[in-house]
């Protein structure tokens, strides 16, 4: 009971700790901001070439979303791996707090740090290309970005659960990067993908998060996809919590908590 009462504070302190920790790495922050800016530049040129200047802001936002996704993906894979390198995975596991409540703040923090990418691409678009910062629903945008952060963070949580077991989690993270941002329509709409991929897209919380953010940017219904993002994210969370019970036991059996 007390554990439940203290959960919000535990999560808040966890997110704060890991956002601060991740924000203090000049290298990671540079990557988080620079890569999306490069992608945004490419996207702007592609969209221009396609004679679609109205969608320039979409390009900036889409590149920002991709940046957020990369941050979550490498963040969650890297988070577990980083804890292992830092030697903090063992003290975290030995703490009485449930492992899910320990890992969730880490993945949420990576999504929060990922919003630097969104900020960077928007700023870049405005400053360099004179992309008008015209948002269809500015208020909804402010709600959609955190919802998208949550959806991405919860997806990362399911990934993190599997990464606890894998000593070379980074390889899997690499393999998942492109398919997921393609399937969830972060940059290009999923309508351009073959029809059979649609169910895969729908199953990914980032799809809905991205749709909400894009609707808030370019017009369209924001709230249904926003709720879908949160709902599907919570399903992922439930799956992650269930998986973690098994994963933690496996990790204790296979001795994958320490590096040695």
């Amino acid at each position, binding site marked *: 009971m007390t554990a439940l009462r203290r959960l919000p504070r535990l999560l808040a302190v*966890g997110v704060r700790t890991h956002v601060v920790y991740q924000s203090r790495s000049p290298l990671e922050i540079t990557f988080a901001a620079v890569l999306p800016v490069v992608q945004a530049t490419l996207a702007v040129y592609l969209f221009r070439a396609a004679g679609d200047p109205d969608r320039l802001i979409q390009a900036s936002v889409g590149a920002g979303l991709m940046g957020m996704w990369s941050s979550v993906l490498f963040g969650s894979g890297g988070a577990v791996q980083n804890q292992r390198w830092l030697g*903090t995975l063992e*003290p975290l596991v030995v703490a009485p707090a449930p492992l899910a409540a320990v890992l969730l703040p880490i993945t949420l923090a990576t999504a929060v740090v990922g919003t630097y990418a969104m900020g960077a691409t928007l700023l870049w678009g405005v400053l360099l290309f004179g992309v008008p910062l015209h948002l269809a629903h500015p208020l909804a945008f402010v709600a959609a970005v955190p919802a998208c952060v949550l959806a991405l963070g919860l997806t990362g949580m399911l990934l993190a659960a599997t990464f606890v077991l894998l000593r070379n989690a980074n390889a899997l993270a690499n393999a998942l990067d492109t398919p997921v941002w393609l399937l969830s329509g972060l940059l290009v709409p999923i309508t351009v993908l073959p029809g059979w991929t649609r169910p895969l897209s729908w199953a990914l919380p980032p799809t809905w998060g991205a749709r909400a953010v894009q609707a808030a940017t370019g017009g369209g219904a924001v709230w249904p996809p926003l709720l879908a993002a949160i709902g599907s994210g919570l399903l992922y969370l439930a799956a992650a919590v269930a998986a973690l019970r098994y994963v933690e036991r496996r990790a204790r059996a296979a001795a994958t908590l320490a590096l040695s």
Partner: protein
Amino acid sequence: MLAIEADNLTRTFPIRTGGRLRGRRTEVHAVRGVSFGVARGELFGLLGPNGAGKTTTIKMLNTLLLPTGGSARVLGHDVASEPVAVRRRIGYVFGGDRGLYDRLSAQDNLRYFAELYGVEPREQRRRIAELLDLVGLSGRERERVEGYSRGMRQRLHIARGLLHRPEVLFLDEPSIGVDPVAARDLRRTVAGLAAAGTTVLLTTHYMAEADELCDRIAVIARGSLQALGTPAELKSAVSGVGVLEIEAYGIDDARLSAVRALPGVRSAAVRDDGRTQWLTVQSADGAADPEPSVRAALDGLRPGRTLRREPTLEDAYVAVVSRAGDETPQAAA
């Protein structure tokens, strides 16, 4: 109820040897059936050479590793099936400079772990200040850990392990890299905790530390328990007529083997203090004084002075471990 109960604890690790193609899968037997009990409030030492299985034993007891055989309970809770109940009651401190968030300050590290270890929010600030003071980091708590020296990190580890006032404390080489004065403070802290009722399981390679602190000591080598008793018992088990140290020059392996084979000699080793060699001989229980025969065996090397002293814990440890080395063949699996 015992604070810690290990019952035939066993752990093997699968390992690969050789390259990817020609590599073989084999097993390391890290801990092979270790049993012991630690009473509440007892300060229990676990000694043994590198790779003996001390850390593996501790990690099974603190729920980080599942035993592959046997069982263990901490304050009555099974370590394999009730990990959360065990974790609530234990603290774990390990040696080395990893295991901390080095881009955060000591204070932020402790705040985070205080939350994870369930320290009441109202109590956290005071508890953290108290512990920083205890480990001598007050005044530096706002600096990032990346700028800390090795010993400072080690002290932070100790503070973290104590945050939630654990009933059972696992200390795996807690004094590694800590300067002598701080190490003495640490010993005083650990002794104080034990006096106040905390059960402590300690591993260390510093024999004097173990001798000073521990109520009882278990020596493990090659994954098996080799000796168990109070420091006095362990020492008396090797005493006989005590330890002889004979000054000599140029002792070679052949001579050393000859000395070891003498009746009345339990073990012998050579120690070099830079200028002279000393032959350290432990006499066997109930045997006659081996000094004359040892001096005779060193004939030609013109042995010098003989010093006699009571055995130290180190003598006892060396005797136990070298006996284990002789008796357990390497390939036993």
